[in-house]
């Protein structure tokens, strides 16, 4: 099902004016920030379809940047995000994309991390009511909603990697709700995405990181982060 629960219909709490073009865009930006794992120093934002046609009127640009600053959808600073990002030293550019795109509300982000210089290219779609899917991360096909705590594992495509990953999950009592794996080529780089029922713990991430063939482990958790931060503001 594209829409998972009652709060994907009634909700999110958000700053207007558009759930798909503002709240959804903010969530895509925030998911990208979490995958990158740090504040970007460069952000190239490429809009397609309806996003390209109406992004200024809907504040889609400000919402994406707000997400990159790790703001939630109802953060009152969203309307001022572009200025806040500039103050934080983020170099931002917007442009209209060309070529095929998977959904009328599509955005592609090209980011460079401030601290490590890590590069990330991520494509997200906004499917309505503030709900999103991340469909591509660095050329790997994924389907990530951010509705559940999600673990992303960059690894080599060797025999048995998945078995050792799921064994770690079983021992830690983490149930997997959705799972996908994509690889660049046989025995090449691969990305496995796991949506869990419970938030990933530091211990789980350490165990996964320690597996042979695992290069890096990242977590995206849009709802969990928001709940933890309820009542206090996050900082860029």
């Amino acid at each position, binding site marked *: *099902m*594209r*829409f*998972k*629960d*009652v*709060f*994907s*219909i*009634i*909700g*999110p*709490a*958000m*700053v*207007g*004016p*558009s*759930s*798909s*073009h*503002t*709240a959804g865009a903010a969530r895509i930006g925030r998911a990208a920030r979490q995958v990158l794992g740090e504040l970007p120093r460069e952000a190239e934002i490429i809009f397609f*379809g*309806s996003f390209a*046609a*109406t992004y*200024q*009127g*809907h*504040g889609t640009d400000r919402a994406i940047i707000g997400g990159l600053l790790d703001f939630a959808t*109802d953060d*009152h600073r*969203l*309307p001022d995000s572009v200025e806040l990002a500039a103050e934080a030293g983020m170099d931002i550019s917007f442009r209209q994309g060309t070529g095929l795109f998977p959904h*009328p*509300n599509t955005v592609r982000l090209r980011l460079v991390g401030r601290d490590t210089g890590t590069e990330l290219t991520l494509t997200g779609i*906004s*499917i*309505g*009511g*503030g709900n999103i899917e991340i469909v591509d991360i660095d050329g790997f096909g994924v389907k990530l909603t951010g509705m559940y705590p999600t673990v992303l594992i960059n690894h080599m495509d060797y025999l048995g990697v998945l078995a050792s990953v799921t064994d770690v999950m079983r021992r830690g009592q983490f149930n997997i709700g959705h799972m996908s794996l994509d690889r660049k080529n046989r025995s090449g780089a691969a990305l496995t995405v796991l949506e869990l*029922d*419970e938030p990933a713990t530091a211990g789980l991430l350490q165990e996964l990181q320690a597996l042979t063939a695992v290069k890096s482990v990242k977590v995206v958790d849009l709802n969990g982060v928001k709940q933890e931060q309820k009542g206090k503001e996050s900082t860029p």
Partner: protein
Amino acid sequence: MNFQTLSQLAVLCEERGLGIGALMLEEQSAESGRPQEQEFATMKEYYGVMKEAVHRGMTQDTTSRSGLTGLDAQRVGAYNAASEPFLGGPAGQAMAYALAVSEVNASMGRIIATPTAGSCGIIPGVFLSCQERFGWDDDYMVSGLFAAGAIGYVIANNSFVSGAEGGCQAEVGSAIGMAAGALTELRGGTPAQAIHAVGLALKNTLGLICDPVGGLVEIPCIVRNGFGAVTALAAADMALAGVRSVIPSDEVIKVMLEVGSAMPEKHRETAGGGLAQTPTGRQIMKDLRNKKG
């Protein structure tokens, strides 16, 4: 969730002897793994945000950044109080409240997407006006929000709830259907009656295009929320009177999918057609661009 269609929802309600709202709370808790009390509390918080938005829209300046919209809710409120309106009374109140929340949204204020921001006025509009009229408590209204959510869940997964995918019928149309079904239940209607209300309401918005002037969620979105609140009350009244949706509501939802999928891109939230491309709509867009420099 253990249901994918409105008819499955009605069967489940009957099997468990629950209303739609109570059933959805059970289902939500099972899906999220969080206790019912916690899910209920989150929804109650959302209802608080809706109330704040109504209050803000009825009392504060809601002029949007573009300057195109704002304060219409207060105009309607003053007119309701001072004259003999055609609608007046509770329907006039619902209309004013729906406009209020939509104007708060357009001025980048805080709202709850129900199911979207473009359609965020309809459910708060009818819920708050009916709460004042019938003296219902907040918990009762929150159960109504779970009922609205159950209906929206079915519509969203069998059709769509974004203007870019399916036009305004998917946003304002879905919100009216959700509101109509929830109101029917709140007034003591059976789940079957509530589901008829959904079908009756959706039939009235089939084909509605998404054509925001200048790409802004202002014209015609805000007034469509005002009209939508009135339509939701009308659909609930019909269902409570025993009017049935002869084409079953699940089939009406499929029609929405069919019509939205056939809609040209210019009528799906691109500002490439409809009201956005009238001579006046184009002039407004031009003025906005010049204003930005």
